[in-house]
C-alpha cells in the first residue's frame, strides 16, 4: 500500500477492464439496472482494485447511487455480471455484506440510541460479540473524534458529527471494502477536511474505498481512479491527473465575454467554450494565448488558472442543469 505516494501518481496504473489484469475486488461487466422503462444504469463495466480509492462522479441521475446500491447488495441488478469480493450479490448477499462498510447518502442513524449505542447495536447485526463490540465502539468513537459525545443521543449531534458517526458505524466490522455515497454532503469545510483525513488514514491502512461525490475537488484529492458517469453510462475512466490532462489541457484562460473577443478568437482559430459570462480557452501554455489575446483582442478581463477535474466534468457532461 503506497499511502505516502502523491495523489497525482496513483498507486495502481491507469485502469481498464481488459483481460489479463488481476481480477478486481469489485468487477462489473455490462451491468444494467432498469426501473420500469428507465435505464438507471445502462451497461457499465469497471474493475476496482484492492487498496485503491475509486470514485464515481456524475450529475444527478447519472446512476451513481444505483451502482453503489447494487455493489452493497441492497438493490438487485437487472442484468449483466457483478462480483464483489469474488462473490455474486444475488447469491451470497449476507457473506458479502459481512465484509462491507456502507456510508449511505441519507443519514440513517438510530435516533433511539446514543452515539455509543448506535455503534454497539450495529455491531450486533454483524454477529460481533458484545464485549468486542463495546471495545470496537470505543475505539471508533476516538477515531472519528466523538469520544466526548459517547453518551449523547444522535439527535443532538451536528451534521458533521452525524456523518462522522456514520463513518464509524461503517467500520464496526473491519470492512475490506468501504462504500461511501456522498460522504461529505452538506458539511462545512472543517468537517470535510476531517472526513478526508480519516479516509486517507483508512486508505493508508490498505482499505479499498469506493465513493461517489459531487465535489470535484474532493474526488481529485481522494481518488486514485475515477469514472465520470452520465445517463447511466460511463463516459471516461482514469486517474484525476490523467483525465485533466487528456480532456482539459493544462491550463484554462478565462476571458470576459464580448462579441469582439469572440470574433477575434474565431479569426485566430483558437478553440474556445462559453461558460456563462466568460469565455474559456483550454491550453498547454497560457502565456502565449494571453499575449496574443492582449495584443489582438482587447479583452476586458483575463484570468489564467490550472485546469481542474471540474473542467473535465463540465466538458463531458455539459452545463445543462440536472434536476
Amino acid at each position, binding site marked *: 500500500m503506497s499511502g505516502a505516494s502523491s495523489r497525482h501518481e496513483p498507486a495502481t496504473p491507469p485502469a481498464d477492464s481488459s483481460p489479463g489484469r488481476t481480477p478486481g475486488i469489485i468487477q462489473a461487466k455490462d451491468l444494467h439496472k432498469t426501473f420500469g422503462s428507465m435505464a438507471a444504469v445502462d451497461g457499465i463495466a469497471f474493475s476496482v482494485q484492492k487498496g485503491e480509492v475509486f470514485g464515481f462522479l456524475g450529475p444527478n441521475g447519472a446512476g451513481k447511487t444505483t451502482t453503489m446500491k447494487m455493489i452493497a447488495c*441492497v*438493490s438487485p441488478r437487472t442484468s449483466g455480471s457483478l462480483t464483489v469480493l469474488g462473490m455474486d450479490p444475488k447469491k451470497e448477499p449476507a457473506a458479502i455484506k459481512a465484509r462491507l462498510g456502507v456510508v*449511505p447518502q*441519507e443519514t*440513517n442513524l*438510530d435516533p*433511539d440510541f446514543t452515539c455509543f449505542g448506535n455503534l454497539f447495536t*450495529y455491531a450486533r447485526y*454483524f454477529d460481533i460479540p458484545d464485549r468486542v463490540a463495546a471495545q470496537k465502539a470505543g475505539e471508533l468513537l476516538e477515531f472519528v473524534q466523538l469520544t466526548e459525545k459517547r453518551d449523547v443521543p444522535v439527535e443532538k449531534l451536528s451534521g458533521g458529527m452525524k456523518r462522522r458517526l456514520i463513518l464509524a458505524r461503517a467500520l464496526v466490522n473491519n470492512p475490506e471494502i468501504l462504500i461511501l455515497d456522498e460522504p461529505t454532503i452538506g458539511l462545512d469545510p472543517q468537517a470535510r477536511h476531517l472526513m478526508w483525513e480519516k479516509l486517507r488514514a483508512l486508505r493508508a491502512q490498505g482499505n479499498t474505498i469506493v465513493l461517489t461525490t459531487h465535489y470535484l475537488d474532493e474526488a481529485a484529492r481522494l481518488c486514485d481512479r475515477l469514472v465520470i458517469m452520465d445517463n447511466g453510462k460511463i463516459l471516461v475512466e482514469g486517474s484525476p491527473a490523467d483525465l485533466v490532462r487528456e480532456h482539459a489541457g493544462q491550463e484554462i484562460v478565462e476571458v470576459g465575454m464580448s462579441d469582439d473577443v469572440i470574433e477575434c478568437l474565431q479569426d485566430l482559430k483558437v478553440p474556445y467554450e462559453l461558460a456563462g459570462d466568460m469565455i474559456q480557452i483550454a491550453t498547454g501554455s497560457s502565456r502565449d494565448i494571453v499575449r496574443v489575446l492582449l495584443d489582438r483582442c482587447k479583452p476586458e478581463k483575463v484570468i489564467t488558472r490550472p485546469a481542474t477535474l471540474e473542467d473535465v466534468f463540465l466538458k463531458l457532461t455539459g452545463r445543462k442543469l440536472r434536476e
Partner: protein
Amino acid sequence: MTGMFSIPPISRRAIKVWHRNLVVFARTWHVNFFPPLVEALLYLFAIGMGIGSYIHEVEGQPYVTFIAPAILTIAVMNSAFFECTYGSYVRMYYQKAFDAMIATPLSIEDVIAGELLWGATRSVIYVLIMLPVLAAFGVISLPLALLAIPLAFLGGLMFAGIAMCFTAVTPGIDTLNYPAFLFITPMTLFSGTFFPLTILPVALQYLALALLPLTHLVAVMRMLTQAAVTPVAILHLAWITAVTVLCCIVAINLMRRRLIV
C-alpha cells in the same frame, strides 16, 4: 418478482432486530408499563362495574367476568397492530432504520420477521401486566388463565402480520388511519367482546367469524379465563394459526416488494 405466497428465507438474525426493539422498549419501561395497567383498570371500572351494574349476568357469568377476556384480547390486538403499523412505519420511513439494517448481513426478510416477532412480544408483555390486575379483581380463573400468555403470542403474531400488510402498502402514515378506524375499531366492538356474538343476526355472526380475527381470539381467551375449554377451541386456534401464517408470509413478501427495488 417472487410470488406473494412463497415462503420467504428467514435467518436467525431476525432475533437481532427483535432484540434492538426490546432494548429500546426496556429503556423506556416506565412509560411502556403504565398504559396496559391503566387500560385494564379503566375497562374494569367503566365497563365492567359501571355498565356491569345494570347488566347482571351474561351467559350465566357476571358481566365483568364476561368482558375480562375481551380486555386481554383487545390489548393483544392493539399492541401488536399499532406496533407494526405506526411503529414499524416510523422506523421504516422516517428513521430509515430498515435501510441501515439491510446494509449489514441482515436481509429485509430478517428485518420484517424481527419486527413481527417484536409486535407479538409486545402483546405478551401487555398480557403479562394485565393478568395480575384481572386476577386481583377475581375475574379470571387461575391457573388456566395463564395460558393467555402463549395465546397472546400467537394472537399478537397474527395482528402483527395483518398490520405489516397494511404498512407495506400504505402510501403514507396518515392512510394507516383507515385500517385503524375501519377495521380495528369495529372489530373491537363486534367480535363477541362486550356482548355475545349470538345477539347478532345469524348472517352477521358468520361474517364476524369469517372476517374478524378477534372473534376467534376472544372465544379461545374466554374459554381460558372462565376455565371452560371445549373442543371448538381447536377450530378457533386452527383458524388463527392459518391466518397468522398467511399474513406473516404475505407481509414479508409485500415489504420486500416495497423496499427492495
